[in-house]
């Protein structure tokens, strides 16, 4: 299992991921699962600019990620799988590839319709429902922005989302 981190984070490849988690876990590849980004070369280039030297990234649709998951897991190195949305991670789990895995929620910022759960997690009712469903499909589901921060359990996340 070379994928060490499964993270829902709407900022995708940003500092907390490639520095905070990447340095701590020794990550050298990132699987970014987002249908829109997989179709946008210029945005992929933008995100690639944030990778540390020697690291690589795959930009995949949800369908590609589910289909290629085993192959990605078998490659050398240490990887992270990122989705921009709770719904995308939920669909990956429903495809049967995340069984027993530890998934966490990183940055989901303030936006219309969302309620504050933590400083770095805001959820709307649909996202809270996604997380409840996701929790039953994976090993653990917690919120955690950085490795040094305490993990926050699902009950607190969805219990305080107003959903």
């Amino acid at each position, binding site marked *: 299992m070379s994928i060490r981190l499964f993270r829902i984070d*709407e*900022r995708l*490849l*940003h*500092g907390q991921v490639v520095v905070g988690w990447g340095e701590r876990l020794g990550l050298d590849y990132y699987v970014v699962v987002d249908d829109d980004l997989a179709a946008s070369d*210029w*945005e992929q280039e*933008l*995100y690639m*600019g*944030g*990778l540390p030297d020697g690291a690589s990234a795959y930009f995949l649709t949800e369908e590609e990620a589910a289909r290629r998951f085993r192959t990605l897991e078998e490659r050398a190195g240490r990887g992270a799988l990122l989705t921009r949305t709770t719904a995308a991670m939920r669909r990956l789990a429903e495809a049967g590839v995340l069984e027993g895995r530890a998934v966490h929620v990183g*940055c*989901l*910022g*303030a*936006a219309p319709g*969302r309620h504050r759960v933590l*400083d*770095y997690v*805001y959820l709307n009712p649909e996202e809270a429902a996604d997380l409840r469903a996701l929790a039953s499909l994976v090993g653990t589901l917690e919120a955690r922005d950085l490795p040094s921060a305490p993990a926050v359990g699902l009950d607190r996340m969805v219990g305080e989302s107003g959903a």
Partner: protein
Amino acid sequence: MTGSVVGVVVAHDGVAAALVRAVERISGVEGALREVSNEGCSPEELRGRLEEAAGDGPALLFVDLASGSCAFAARQVARPRPNLAVVTGASLPMLLDFVFHREMELEALAERVADKGRVATRVHLPTAPESDVDPTVPHR
């Protein structure tokens, strides 16, 4: 490109506010720079804050890091706009120069302030302790 260029500093946490405040305190020029923080907001929200701060006229977006959420938002906002430019590595030297040259043409101004930031980075290596100095070698 005509008219004063608006400067927008977009950065993590409270960095933008601190930079803008410091520029105003040092230069005495107020209102030339606007601040945007990525704190607690979604990428969509951040783009909205940036668009509002930049306005419709020519603007230069100063970003703290060359990559990450602030840089992505700035590049995405600027991409369809011919009167927006992005400079990364925002620093006091480039911002201090910017506030006195806002009448310049946007592209030339962007190159100018980026150069100010580059040349402001210098290395001063530690000097040898006095005991290590060879007394037989005369000072020049």
